[in-house]
Structures are given as C-alpha cells and as structure tokens.
C-alpha cells in the first residue's frame, strides 16, 4: 500500500474533512503530507517557528496519558475521557497509552502522516513555580541563572553564521521582543507585517516617504545606544519588507486560519516565509493557559485554547505545503500543572509538560521521553509530573539538527546532554 493511500485514509478517519468542510482537500492531499525520498531543493533555508504557550499549559490535558490509571484517579471532573470510553467526545488515541485532547483533532492528520511528534514529561531542571522566572529560564536557556543577558535563539543564530544576514533572520510577531530573541542577532519585533512602514499621509502621498527619510537620518547618527541601533535596523527592515511585499501571499491550499490573535500571527509568519525574506526563526506567543479554575475537560476554557492552537497549526502546515519540508514548529510552555485537580476544577502550577514538534524533518507519530508515571509515589514533590527530558535537550536537538547550529556552539552554557541517548525527534 502506497503512503498516499495510507495518508488519505487516516486523513478521512481523523474527520478533518468533515470538521473543516474543506472538500477541496479530497482532490489533492498536500504533498507535504506525503513523505518523499528526497528533501527539498538543496540549499533551501531552514526555518523554525517557536510557539510559546504562556501561562503553563496543562500537558496532561493536551496529550492525555489515558493508559495511566492514576490520571483518572487524580482528576475527578477535568480528566479527558479515554478513547472508546463511551463518552460522546473523547481523547483521540495516539499509541494506546497517550491520546490527543479532542480539540487537537485538526492536527491529528499531521500525526498520522508522521510529521508531528510529542515530547512528554519535558521541562526544566529548576522547579520554580513562578511563571515569570520559568519563562525567563526557558527563553534564556539557562535555568536557575537570572543574569543571562540573551536568549537561546539569539545565541543559536549568531553561532549559525551568515555571510549577509537578513534583517528578518529572527522575527517576533507582536509588540515586544521576547527574551528568547534578545541579544546580538538583532531580531525584529513587528505587531503586524501590514503596518511595518512609516505611513504616508493622506494629503500628500510623497510626504510619507519624505518623513521616513527624515526619521532615518535621525536614527542613522553614529550614536551607539539601544534606540539608535534599533532604529537603524528598523529602516533596513522596512526597505526589505517593502520590496518583498509579503502581504501579497494569500493562504494557499485552502488553508483557513482562525481569526484569532494566534491565527493572524501564524498567517503572517507564513507570509514572511513565502516572501523569502531570509526568515530563520519566528516567535509567536499564544496566551491563556493559566487555568487555575474551571479549566474544563473535553469542552471548556482549555479546550478553546487548544482548538485555537490546533486550528492555527493545521492551517499553517496546509498553507505552507511543500515548504513545511524545511520548516519546523516547536511548542513550549514554562511548566506544567498539578496532577491533581484543585478545589476549583482547575490546576495549580506544576512541573513537567508536553511539547509538540511539527515539520518535515520530524520523526513523527511518536511520543518521546520516558514516562515517569502519575501514581502518588512517582510524582515530583508529591504533586507534579516529574521531568524526564530536560527542555534543553529538545531545544538543542532542534538547534543542531534543524537549524544547523554547530554543535560546538555553547548555546546552552552549563548543559551537557545525556550521553549516548539523543531524543531522536528529528531525522
């Protein structure tokens, strides 16, 4: 049986067609979903899209360990029903032990096509339950060290030397630059690709251009400080983006992005990729995971956030089509949540969580990492899922294998991956 048939079948089984009403899909499965013997044209630029789930996602609801009996014992009202449990909506089985939250249905075809992997029980060696410290640690890549000035993605890109680096090597979609991209790489933060210029005024079309020239002169002064430096990079970026005009790229292959903040950001990442502006790392936040109360189960608050995530990722993969061969999406979150539900049908700050890896070079369709178990005696500090995979091991693998960062580059100072046991998430 050819791979194409196989893919088509699982696609149908996953119900993606019915769900999205994308009948056009039946006519042509994106070639991205069909593994081919050869990779894309040589020399194509590899890109990474880092998605930060701020607020600490409950990994146990996102990727449900339905085979662990302690899971259902710990969660009377918020557990996700096991596959074939007879409930009208249940988790979607992955391998007999783990299952996707039903809201992740849109990305199940990617799992089936082995483009999507999960790393579970992944997290930080430092057990802080402060969102802000844990986010900083994950973004600087130095758990426990607060003085690290730059982010791991900046260090990674700096180590991956470029002869003529594009101002769009690293882009954060949003008004602020995340810590992961701060540093020497000179990343760009943009709230929107549509508004990335000095506006021309209505009365005189030419004068906007002239105002830009004026501002440019002001920021081009030889002063070495944060404002002038950023200003110079800004104008370089503006010119390049004007020439590339990413706005002309409409979603392809029938992709429909959710009309949410996250969906709109991912759509713009796709536009930057297609416009070939030299993007190597894009960073996108998706917020709303701090579910202390009423987090819901198959439906509810968390289900809605997960649906936003999965609809967005599915649309992105579909939109990019073949280009997904060279693109990797990595999700991350500062920590997970307590194994037991709290008094308010929610969960408090915990330890390990699950991360998703999606793309052409992923050895997908597998859950990676050792499962530490959820029985009371197996928990970290008697309350949380223990960390069995240091997030730096996963991040390092992504940096080395996908981005081609040289292994000798110390982008995670003080971290030595466990000997002889690579995760092997990437082919």
């Amino acid at each position, binding site marked *: 049986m050819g791979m194409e048939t196989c893919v088509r079948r699982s696609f149908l089984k996953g119900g993606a067609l019915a769900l999205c009403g994308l009948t056009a899909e039946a006519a042509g499965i994106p070639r991205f979903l069909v593994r081919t013997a050869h990779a894309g044209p040589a020399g194509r630029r590899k890109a990474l899209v880092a998605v930060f789930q701020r607020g600490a996602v409950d990994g146990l609801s996102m990727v449900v360990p339905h085979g662990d009996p302690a899971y259902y014992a710990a969660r009377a009202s918020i557990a996700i029903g096991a596959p074939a449990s007879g409930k009208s909506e249940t988790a979607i089985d992955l391998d007999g032990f783990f299952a996707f939250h039903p809201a992740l249905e849109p990305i199940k075809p990617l799992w089936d096509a082995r483009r999507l992997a999960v790393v579970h029980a992944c997290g930080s060696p430092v057990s802080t339950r402060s969102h802000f410290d844990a986010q900083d640690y994950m973004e600087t890549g130095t758990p426990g060290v607060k003085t690290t000035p730059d982010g791991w993605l900046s260090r990674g890109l700096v180590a991956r030397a470029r002869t003529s680096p594009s101002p769009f090597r690293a882009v954060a979609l949003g008004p602020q630059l995340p810590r992961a991209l701060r540093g020497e790489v000179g990343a760009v933060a943009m709230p929107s690709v549509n508004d990335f210029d000095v506006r021309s005024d209505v009365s005189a079309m030419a004068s906007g251009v002239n105002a830009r020239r004026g*501002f440019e002169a002001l920021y081009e002064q030889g002063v070495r400080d944060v404002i002038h430096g950023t200003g110079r990079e800004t104008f370089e970026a503006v010119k390049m983006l004007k020439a590339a005009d990413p706005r002309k790229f409409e979603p392809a292959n029938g992709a429909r992005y959710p009309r949410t903040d996250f969906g709109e950001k991912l759509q713009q990442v796709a536009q930057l990729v297609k416009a070939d502006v030299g993007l190597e790392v894009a960073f996108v936040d998706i917020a709303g995971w701090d579910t202390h109360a009423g987090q819901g189960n198959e439906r509810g608050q968390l289900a809605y956030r997960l649906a936003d995530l999965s609809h967005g990722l599915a649309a992105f993969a579909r939109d990019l089509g073949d280009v997904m061969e060279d693109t990797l999406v990595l999700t991350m979150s500062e920590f997970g949540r307590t194994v037991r539900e709290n008094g308010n049908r929610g969960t408090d700050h915990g330890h390990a969580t699950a991360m998703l890896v999606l793309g052409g070079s992923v050895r997908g369709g597998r859950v990676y990492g050792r499962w530490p178990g959820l029985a009371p005696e197996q928990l970290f500090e008697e309350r949380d899922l223990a960390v069995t995979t240091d997030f730096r091991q996963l991040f390092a693998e992504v940096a080395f294998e996908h981005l081609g960062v040289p292994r000798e580059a110390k982008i995670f100072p003080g971290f030595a991956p466990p000997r002889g046991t690579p995760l092997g998430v990437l082919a």
Partner: protein
Amino acid sequence: MRPWRVGLALVAVALVVSGCGTAPVASSVASPAIAPESDEHILHVLNRLAYGPRPGDVERVRAMGIGAWIERQLHPDLIADEAIERRLAAYPTIAMTTDDLFREYPRPDPAAVARRREEMLRGDGAADGMAREAAPGEPRRIMIAAELAAARMERAVWSERQLQEILVDFWFNHFNVYAQKDAVRWLISPYEREAIRPHVLGRFRDLVLATARHPAMLFYLDNWLSTRAGLVAQAGPNRGRRLGLNENYARELLELHTLGVDGGYTQGDVVEVARAFTGWSFAYPQGDRQFVFRPRAHDDGDKRVLGHVIAAGGGEADGIAVIDIVTRHPSTARTIATKLARRFVSDDPPPSLVDRVARTYQDTDGDIRAMMLTIVRAREFWSEAAYRAKIKKPIELVASAARALDASVGSEPGLRSAGFQLARAASTLGERLFNAQPPTGYPDTADAWVNTGALLGRMNFALSLAQNRVPGVRVDVERLVAGADRRKPEEVLDRLLAVTVHGQVSARTREILSAQLRDPAIVRLTADDRGPANTDVEKLAALVLGSPEFQRK
C-alpha cells in the same frame, strides 16, 4: 546640550512631609541660592514625576520653585483639577457602581458567544476582539475597560495631578488585573477607583489590603473560589462537589505583590498563605458582588507563614495577619524600593538608593509618600547618570507628545474621541491599558519596549499627532511657533525646538533637522515665490516627537 550640573545642594532638602492631606509646610527641594534650578533639573522632574513638559511648564515650575512644585504633586488633593474632572463626565462608566455596571451591561448570551468563537476558529466571521463581545444592539461590556483607558489617557495628558496619575499607573501594574477575564470586565473600573487610586501615596499595607479584598483581584487570581480542603458544596451548580485550595493569589501575593520571587518563601509558605485566605470571597454571580467572608469555606487550623504562627480560629483575620507579616518583611521593603527606584531613577537603580528607600519603607511602615521623598531627595535621582536614562513606555510617549504640542480636546468627531484615540495609540505601540494578561502588568524597562516595530509605531504616532490626524485631539503647531518668521526655516526650527523640547536635542539632531529644511516636502514651494515660503512645521514637529531624544525621559 548644556552640561548637566549635579547640584548636590539639591539633596539638602527641607521638604517637610505634612500629615494626611493637610497643607504642606512651605519648603523647598532645591536652594536656588546655591544651585540654580537649571532647565535640565526642571525637565528631569517634569519627565519623571509628570508625563513630560507642556509649553510653558518649565517657566511655571521655575517661578514656583522645584521644591514647591514637587511638594504640591505629593499632595494631589490640594491641586485644583476641575477642568479634567468635567471632561471625564464624557466617560460615565468610570463613576458607576459595580451594581450599575452589571445592570447596564448585561452578560451576552453564552450560546451566542460560543457560536461566535466557533466561527472565529474556523476562520469565519469577524476577527478577534470587539465583534465577539456582543450581538448587535447589545451594550458592549468592553466599553467599561475602554472608557477607563480613555479616562486614564486624558488624565495623563490634562490632569494637573501628574504624579498621582503616574503612581496610579505604577501601582495598577504592580497589582495588575486583566480586563478580559470574565467578571473583571465589569469590576475593572471600580478596582482602579476603589482599590488603587485612594492609596497611591498612602501606606503600602493599605494597597495590599484593598487589592486583596477587592472583587476584581479576588476573581482575577481565583481566591474567591479557594476553600479549605474537603469542603463539600451545599448549594449551587457545584452542589455535592468537593472543593478545595487554590494557590493562585497566595503565590502572586508573595512573588509579585510583596516579598519578590527571591524573597525567601517556599512552596510550603504558598500553601499556608492560601489556607489563610480561604473564605475571602465575593458575592458572585448572585448577590451584590461585594467582598464577603465565607466562614464555612475557611480553613480554621493554625498556619505557619514565613516562620510566624497564626493561631487556629482566626477566621477572616487570618488574611489580615498574613498581610501584616508580609508587608513588614524586609524582602518586601526591598522589592518595593527596587521597583520605585526603577520607575523613577533608572532601569538598574543604584543599590545605594534602593537601600535608602528600603530603609524609609521600614522606618515609616511602608509610607509611599515618604519613599517618594527619599527618592527625590537622593543624589542618585539628580545624577547625570539618571538624566534621560529611561525610555518612555508607550503611554508615556503618547501622553508626553500630546503635552509637548499643547494638545487640546477637539469638538470633532465627538466628545469621547480624544481619550479613545490616545488609548488606541498606546495600544498600537504595545501597551493596551488594562489588557496585560499576566499578573506582572506591563514592564517598566527599556528592553521590553525598544524594538523595530515599536519604533516605527512611535514615528507614525508622531506624524499623526503633529499633522492633526488623531481624531478628537487638536494640535496647533502654527500657534506654537507664532512669532518666528515663517520665511526663515531655521528660525522656525529653533522656535519649535525651544517650545517642545527646550532645545534639548543633540547638535547632530539639530543639524539633521536643519538639513530637512532643504527637503522640498518640508519647505513648501509656492507658485508665486520660488524661494522657501512656508515651512511645513507639522512635519518638522513630527520628526522631533519621533526622534531618538524624544523617546527618552
């Protein structure tokens, strides 16, 4: 720029803090006989303790004396502010009671909300934001936060009580709540009005207590739901369910509001603090939505918090006991001192100053006005290193630009437009008021705000404002440069720089602006006169407000 003379004499302050709101004793921060109050000193004060100078402010402060000006700002009740108070009538929700807000802005039909969400996920319907708020014709709850943001921006620009407004922003972010978390949509306005504003120059403990008991905070950090372990709900939708502890508020109280993340508490302390606050709730969704203590929900055992024992049986007072313990903790003095020094002096405040402000905290039981005095009396505050060392946050950039151009409220397109448009401008630059989701609020340091996209946004706002394209906000740049000969662009430029930034731009910036005068788009050519006839002062003003210098304060 003229050399910045550190007037050590300025530190010799004779400012006497008067009691609660009574008339201040006449005194002065600086002694002009010893150190002349230079433009730089006055500008520094107007940039740090106010949202930047308006034309004429430097002269006004000089006439009054820096010390007297600061002292008035430290006693905002003594400053007449009727004009802005009248303006704010345009935003009726900011004065409405919680009850009225819930009555006037009914909750939208949950089924309709779910339907709109579903559409959004599938890529149909309207985009995220306003549209899913309400069906057509329904009063939109989002107006409550929008009017509060508009009022906040109008106050930043036009209130005479400038330091008060800066502190409202500072303390709101310190005790942040997020306007889009369910009930907070209605409670946000009462929260700022009742829990933050009255205490911004008062005792820190009062701020902690007022926020701890406010329904907005109780809801935002979930404490209203937190109960002793094993409580079984007797009624309501959860009838028969076992309830229990929620750590959210307890953790943020220790981590963010008081001790600080490295302040020396443990996970055990978080649980004990959460136990102490069980039962601190509010009457919601049924009831008057006011604070209520629920004795049945309270864990009445004894608690051990940071080495102190809270005896069993304390009931509602357990929470008060925790607030006393944490607000008297030396780590809290340090955390608050560091944040104030970071806001008013520099992103990395000198440890010597932080030490002194922390000591003031401990000596005065957390008196915020006294800590402010320690800061404005400090050598570090007046040092050259601190001068223009801070980057303006978005709301500061927006407000200071409007002030620099002496903006006023226009009658078109409507009375409420000015505030909404100014808030929208700040939002475009990344600071959407009342919409910071995490409990840290918006950051106060340059690294968060200086980036390519944000700088472009700032330039674009400068253009819109100077060219009168912010609806409802009127500027008259022509009037500002009145007196300068329009046929002499250099003269116009000097006049503009004098009136907007007191000539405080680098020689190089002055040169570049001057070169712009030769740009045909700046100097308009008229048909009957081949020479430069008419300097485009609006564009020039935009360049000044968008310049690197103007991003600093």
